[in-house]
């Protein structure tokens, strides 16, 4: 993985020293909150309901074992013993004291982690395919390009005052989108042109929040040497024409919607034509320099037939179930991509204790070439595990609560922290996720692939718009209600869910989801997933079941 050079490291240390002085002046009363707030936000520090929250950037979701151990250290020493992994593949700590934050950032800097640009109207963490470098279906490893984007976009002087935050995602292939590319301000699919050269399809103007929009393609094929000049052209158009007068209309998606994609494309191409492309061109040598940091591990192909592995599968049904749901085929025969579920039944999605973090670091060293990835679905990936090690690996997961075999199933729920922690939230997310997980666990194998995503407010950190079933918490006269959307997807078949009808009260959410699932189970034909059935039969049967007359003693849904 990428390692800072001496310049990067010195910059980070100077930045911590600068921040330490800012905190000292704030605590001494030399800075007001108004003056200090932008400074702490530049360092990822929010003030939430119960304490400060520190959001640490995990660039393209890639972590080394020593970095994971440092997160465990922060959890133990400065928080309550756990952290929370987010849909932006960042790590949040919820119980942080302002007076300790300079020490936390100094500790993080020793392993090249920081919280810069995890807030504010800046480029946020660039996300990528968590299977990068391991998936058989990738065109190329996207991480060298993510690192190039990270370096270009970190403290970029021209773009340090954007109209609003800006998120970029890079997928290793268009046909297998594991990075939710179409809901990003800029989405990049690695692809080949007819000549076999590698470049990017460039999409612009996606996003969730109160105005969900899927990104549209502005360029079918961009040669990779022009990646930065083209990104710069898009950002210049946005920086110049994006709205700064209205917070709700300030994202690039609103600009694209306003102009239409054709005029947006013209504007970007005109800007690009005027840019000095040579100055920003990525030479083959430059790309190779970055790629060296992400060289594939030296994995020897192993025969697929493995008697011991087959015997373990046959002898332990729980192991077999975990292998079925939590492992995927690696591009090198005999190896596997392992996903560790952070969705234990009935517990908050995405939370990870210090002990679990330490174990994951150990497992990465023992079995996965020292590589750890985070997913936007709030799970952890060990990308390079030999199949013959799966049994030993799995045996160490159970005692730590990390063996839940539910990846992609109905209990693999995304949820934001919601009103239990977040000062922006309208309603709670975690208790809804916990209830649904407990309730649906016994039937999850029968239900199959079904992605439930829960947000506690319209800002959509829980990606509810792209859930097969999306759940959005709303406040109706002081009561928690939940609006349900159906048919969304964040994958290669990206779609925004449609609101099915009036919101349901908190106590009714489990019943409501049950009714929707019953429709699917009774209507599905062989091989259909929830979304397949929904797309075939439409919303009407689901709506009819959800809003069927109810016994008088059950509460009515809100109008």
């Amino acid at each position, binding site marked *: 993985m990428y390692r800072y050079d001496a310049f990067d490291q010195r910059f980070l240390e100077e930045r911590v020293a600068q921040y330490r002085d800012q905190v000292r002046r*704030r*605590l*001494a*009363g*030399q800075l*007001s*909150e108004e003056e200090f707030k932008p400074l702490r936000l530049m360092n990822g520090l929010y*003030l*939430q*309901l*119960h*304490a*400060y929250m520190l959001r640490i950037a995990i660039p393209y979701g890639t972590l080394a074992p020593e970095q994971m151990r440092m997160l465990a250290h922060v959890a133990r020493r400065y928080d309550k013993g756990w952290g929370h992994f987010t849909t932006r593949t960042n790590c949040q700590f919820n119980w*942080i*004291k*302002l*007076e300790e934050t300079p020490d936390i950032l100094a500790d993080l800097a020793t392993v090249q982690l920081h919280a810069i640009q995890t807030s504010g109207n800046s480029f946020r963490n660039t996300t990528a395919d968590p299977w990068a470098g391991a998936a058989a279906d990738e065109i190329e490893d996207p991480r060298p390009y993510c690192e190039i984007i990270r370096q270009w976009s970190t403290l970029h002087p021209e773009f340090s005052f954007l109209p609003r935050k800006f998120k970029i995602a890079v997928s290793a292939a268009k046909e297998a989108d594991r990075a939710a590319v179409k809901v990003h301000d800029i989405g990049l699919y690695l692809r080949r042109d007819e000549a076999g050269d590698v470049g990017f399809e460039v999409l612009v103007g996606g996003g969730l929040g109160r105005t969900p929009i899927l990104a549209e393609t502005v360029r079918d094929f961009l040669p990779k040497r022009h990646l930065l000049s083209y990104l710069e052209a898009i950002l210049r158009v946005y920086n110049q024409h994006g709205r700064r007068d209205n917070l709700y209309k300030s994202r690039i998606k609103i600009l694209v919607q306003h102009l239409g994609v054709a005029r947006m494309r013209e504007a970007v191409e005109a800007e690009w034509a005027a840019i000095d492309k040579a100055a920003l061109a990525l030479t083959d040598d430059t790309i190779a320099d970055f790629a060296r940091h992400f060289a594939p591990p030296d994995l020897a192909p192993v025969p697929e037939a493995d008697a011991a592995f087959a015997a373990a599968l046959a002898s332990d049904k729980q192991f077999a179930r975990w292998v079925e749901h939590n492992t995927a085929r690696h591009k090198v025969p005999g190896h596997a991509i392992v996903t560790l579920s952070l969705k234990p039944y009935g517990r*908050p999605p995405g939370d990870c204790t210090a002990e679990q973090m330490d174990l994951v670091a150990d497992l990465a060293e023992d079995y996965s070439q020292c590589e750890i990835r985070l997913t936007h679905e709030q799970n952890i990936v060990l990308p390079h595990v030999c199949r013959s090690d799966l049994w030993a690996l799995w045996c160490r997961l159970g005692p730590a609560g990390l063996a839940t075999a539910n990846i992609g199933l109905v209990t693999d729920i995304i949820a934001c922290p919601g*009103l*239990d*922690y977040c000062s922006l*939230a309208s309603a*709670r997310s*975690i*208790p809804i996720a*916990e209830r649904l997980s407990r309730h649906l666990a016994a039937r999850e194998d029968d239900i199959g692939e079904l992605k439930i995503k829960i947000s506690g407010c319209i800002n959509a950190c829980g990606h509810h718009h792209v859930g097969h079933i999306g759940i959005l918490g709303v406040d109706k006269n*002081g009561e*928690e209600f939940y609006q349900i959307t159906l048919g969304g997807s964040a994958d290669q078949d990206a779609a925004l869910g449609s609101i099915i009808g009036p919101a349901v009260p908190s106590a009714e959410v489990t019943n409501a989801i049950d009714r929707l699932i019953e429709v699917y189970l009774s209507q599905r034909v062989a091989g259909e997933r929830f979304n397949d059935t929904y797309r075939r039969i439409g919303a009407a049967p689901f709506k009819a079941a959800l809003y069927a007359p109810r016994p008088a003693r059950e509460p009515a849904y809100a109008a």
Partner: protein
Amino acid sequence: MAQSGPVRLVTGNRLRDGVPVYYAGPGRWSPAIADARLLAEEAAAAALAALEAETLPRPVVAPYLIDAEIASDRIRPASLRERIRAFGPTV
């Protein structure tokens, strides 16, 4: 605490650690809502204005008024958000 019914009080987050605290009288802030000074409408606005006019360093970030009620001799904030702030996450 002999009274009952709606009241107002001043809350904010403590600067040094972010902990929710409640105004408990001149120079006093408490993390326990039971210690909060209960204020009538006009007195509440005046108390908040006085706190906002204090010179730096102030121990509390961005104090504001919330509604609460007294029931069974306990202070209960009116909104779910403020109940979660006062009594902790529900999970």
